[in-house]
């Protein structure tokens, strides 16, 4: 049986006065109240309305056990490859005492009142938060459910609940002779008083039978035979498809379109003009693309036609000379710099980056008189709904979002821009229309990881240890646009994450941030967010300090991590497994990096080889990881492998550059992804831990670049301070 049933939404909107999950049985709702306490609600599913549960309960999700014994987890988080549908189902199954294949996972419809992420407070999948947010509530909900089902069986048999046992979805009495399945018990259980969530006993981790095992992904079978349905696979009766061209210059507008030529193409039905884009609506994308080409669009380039990368960088360079909003200030870094035995200064830069998800941006819209339906894969269903309410003038409830599996997210699908464009187009189209971006549009109208320009200074004492550390970050603020309420006094907490709190003992530290917005270029979260830039800078600079102090990079870091045992643990593990200190052939080198990010401790050692032509080949990555309790160790390894490659791709190849207001890159021939013939062997070594789980999806992406550039330094003596790595700079003669 497929344990994913994703094609039908679990409920429609506007159901506040009707039962919001179809069918009877036991309904469990759960809400994380203050980070540690969960409130669990239980009732008969046929009788619960949205109004009953949403206030003051503010649930994070729901579980239903139907009379057939099927357990349905209405999943507030989206699956974009990170394995969330499996790991969250495991948390529930462990405590509920059912097998993983008894749990059916369904996409939640958009509803912040019912499905908010307890870390992010809206229904959003990001910040490597899923397991962290649901670790306690889902297990407690499972334990409450199990307690109720056991109580229902005990009542039926007139025995003490403590004499009964639950396993594999069946309750058995003390003698082992009587059995009742969860399906048989669900109705009776829904009528019993609900125990407080903190009164039910959670399993001792040593008794876990599922958590910590490499359980099979629930979404894998449908992804190997073409059955998995992503937003781009939407099919509806009468649906047309549209190809779209957006003004190549950011902020430009449509000036002229040869509609007649476009309409002359076979299969083309309509040309739609909106301010910033043209769409050609046709029977199939082959015809739509031909129509778009024939339309020979002329653009009014608008105010950004002269924007280019060099000017953006120049402005960053200038503005970063001025002090910024202080993220951290301890001791007196300026004074300590003045008295240091040795002073080191460096400038680091990282480029704009596109997300380039394999599934290009797309969205299907059916506009109706008073409402609309949206088929899309999004990390933010409720935010999308809210933004569309503004675009359409419809109440939120009239915007029905049918969410899908995501063909990659990486932060791109935290933005509703593509859905907004599709809706503006669909407002002029009769019937459903699927708008699909070309790869070129997808890369040239992404919202980009900001270009950051960082100024670093450190002072070393006579023993070589840092006595002063200053770090100034200049770049676009995503928070100022996306979460303005958290952008306080000019400080973007994301832009400084991973910089304000390095894992080391640094006695005098000053970290500040200068907001500099690139004209016209939209910026957004990108896998690894703040840390993916800051860990590169901090760990590269730490390597510079070790070199300046004439000390081994691992030993130098260890001395600064004496009071941080978990960071020390992963560093020691990675170094040992990588054979740190053992000789390598000429032209090869090892580099290390370590960080505490997204609630996890991580260290990597990279082995690279640099050819005489400057070509960099990464041969091996060894990762030491302490992410607390592992839910699914195989998924964690998969994330380390994939996330490292995502970060490596950026470090070695990734750069979006702007010329004349346009993005210069367009497809996978000039925005290069890593391919199978380039990737290193990646080994993951997990530290067994009973600490609460940390995040994982963005951890390897953030840690890998510094390990690689530090290895390049070890191999060549050349310090890479600007990404991506430039082979020209590494040529033997240079």
């Amino acid at each position, binding site marked *: 049986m497929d344990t994913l049933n994703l094609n039908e939404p679990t409920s429609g909107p506007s159901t506040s006065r009707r039962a919001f999950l179809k069918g009877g049985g036991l309904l469990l709702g759960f809400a994380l109240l203050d980070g540690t306490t969960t409130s669990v609600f239980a009732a008969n599913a046929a009788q619960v309305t949205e109004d009953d549960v949403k206030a003051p309960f503010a649930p994070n999700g729901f579980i239903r056990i139907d009379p057939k014994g099927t357990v349905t987890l209405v999943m507030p988080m989206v699956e974009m490859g990170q394995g969330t549908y499996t790991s969250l189902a495991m948390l529930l199954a462990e405590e509920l005492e059912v097998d993983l294949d008894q749990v059916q996972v369904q996409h939640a419809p958009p509803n912040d009142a019912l499905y908010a992420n307890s870390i992010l407070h809206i229904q959003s999948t990001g910040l490597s938060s899923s397991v962290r947010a649901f670790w306690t509530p889902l297990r407690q909900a499972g334990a409450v459910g199990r307690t109720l089902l056991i109580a229902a069986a005990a009542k039926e048999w007139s025995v003490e609940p403590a004499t009964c046992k639950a396993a594999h979805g069946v309750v058995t009495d003390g003698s082992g002779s009587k059995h009742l399945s969860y399906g048989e018990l669900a109705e009776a259980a829904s009528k019993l008083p609900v125990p407080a969530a903190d009164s039910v006993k959670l399993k001792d981790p040593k008794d876990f039978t599922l958590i910590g095992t490499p359980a099979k992904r629930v979404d894998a079978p449908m992804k190997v*035979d073409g059955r998995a349905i992503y937003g781009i696979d939407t099919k509806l009766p009468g649906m047309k498809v549209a190809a779209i061209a957006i003004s190549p210059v950011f902020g430009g507008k449509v000036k002229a379109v040869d509609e007649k030529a476009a309409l002359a193409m076979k299969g083309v039905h309509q040309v739609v003009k909106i301010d910033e884009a043209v769409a050609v609506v046709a029977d199939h994308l082959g015809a739509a693309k031909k129509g778009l080409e024939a339309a020979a669009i002329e653009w009014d380039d608008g105010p950004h036609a002269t924007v280019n990368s060099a000017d953006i960088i120049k402005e960053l360079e200038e503005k970063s000379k001025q002090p910024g909003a202080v993220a951290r200030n301890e001791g007196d870094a300026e004074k300590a710099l003045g008295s240091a035995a040795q002073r080191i200064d460096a400038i680091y830069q990282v480029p704009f980056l596109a997300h380039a998800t*394999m599934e290009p941006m797309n969205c299907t819209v059916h506009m109706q008189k008073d409402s609309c339906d949206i088929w899309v894969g999004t990390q933010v269903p409720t935010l999308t709904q809210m933004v569309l309410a503004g675009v359409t003038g419809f109440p939120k409830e009239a915007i029905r979002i049918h969410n899908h599996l995501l*063909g990659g997210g990486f932060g791109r699908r935290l933005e509703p821009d593509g859905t907004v464009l599709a809706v503006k187009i669909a407002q002029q189209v009769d019937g459903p229309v699927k708008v699909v971006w070309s*790869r070129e549009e997808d890369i040239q109208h992404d919202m980009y990881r900001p270009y950051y320009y960082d100024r670093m200074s450190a002072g070393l004492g006579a023993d070589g240890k840092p006595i002063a550390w200053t770090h100034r970050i200049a770049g676009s603020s995503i928070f100022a646009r996306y979460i303005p309420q958290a952008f306080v006094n000019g400080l973007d907490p994301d832009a400084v994450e991973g910089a304000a709190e390095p894992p080391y003992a640094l006695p005098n530290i000053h970290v500040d941030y200068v907001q500099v917005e690139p004209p016209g270029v939209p910026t957004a979260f990108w896998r690894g967010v703040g840390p993916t830039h800051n860990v590169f800078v901090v760990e590269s600079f730490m390597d510079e300090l070790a070199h300046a102090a004439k000390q081994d990079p691992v030993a130098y870091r260890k001395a600064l991590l004496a009071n941080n045992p978990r960071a020390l643990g992963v560093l020691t593990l990675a170094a040992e497994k990588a054979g740190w200190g053992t000789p390598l052939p000429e032209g090869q080198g090892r580099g290390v990096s370590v960080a505490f990010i997204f609630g996890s401790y991580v260290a990597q050692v990279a082995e690279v080889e640099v050819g005489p032509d400057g070509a960099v080949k990464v041969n091996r990555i060894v990762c030491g990881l302490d992410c607390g309790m592992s839910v699914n160790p195989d*998924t964690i390894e998969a994330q380390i492998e994939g996330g490292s490659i995502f970060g490596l791709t950026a470090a070695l190849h990734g750069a979006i550059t702007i010329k004349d207001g346009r993005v210069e890159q367009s*497809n996978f021939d000039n925005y290069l992804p890593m391919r*199978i013939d380039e990737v290193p062997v990646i080994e993951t070594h997990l530290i067994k831990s009973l600490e609460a789980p940390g995040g994982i999806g963005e951890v390897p992406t953030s840690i890998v670049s510094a390990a690689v550039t530090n290895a390049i330094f070890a191999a060549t003596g050349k310090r890479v301070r600007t990404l991506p790595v430039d082979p020209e700079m590494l040529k033997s003669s240079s």
Partner: protein
Amino acid sequence: MLSRRLSARVNSAFPPAPATLEEAMAYSLKINGTAHSVDVDDDTPLLWVIRDVLGMTGTKFGCGAALCGACTVHIDGVATRSCITTVDSVGDSAITTIEAIGETPQGAALQKAWLDLEVVQCGYCQSGQLMSAAALLKETPKPTDEDINSAMSGNVCRCGTYQRIRAAIKQAAEA
């Protein structure tokens, strides 16, 4: 680098069918053993015929330029990028898509290995990965690492599942 990839993987094995003067000609395509008649322009990429006209969505769109391999199908058993293969070039060749690859011994062995080793993450590129791998194993039942690099480096995976793809191909080759 690009030319190496293109030359190795683009469907040069399929000469275009003779040009026709008939404007509204319907093409008959043999896909997964079933004949389909489609009425589209002769230069329509096979990808859009498969996905939009025939509604078979397992074959994916990724780049439109034979740079990522997400759209890979088999034409007479050879891995072919359907996004740049025009419908008039196919003739009466047999087209196989991801929906039917499990019916071949290589396809079935690969799907099993993909599940055994938990290759997929977002999964979007995996149809194309499996189609390229199935063609490789048919041609080269015991591929070396170099064979795998050469057959698979036209397929992009942004989730970075390459290490497991390599291991799964080797496992399927041993099956």
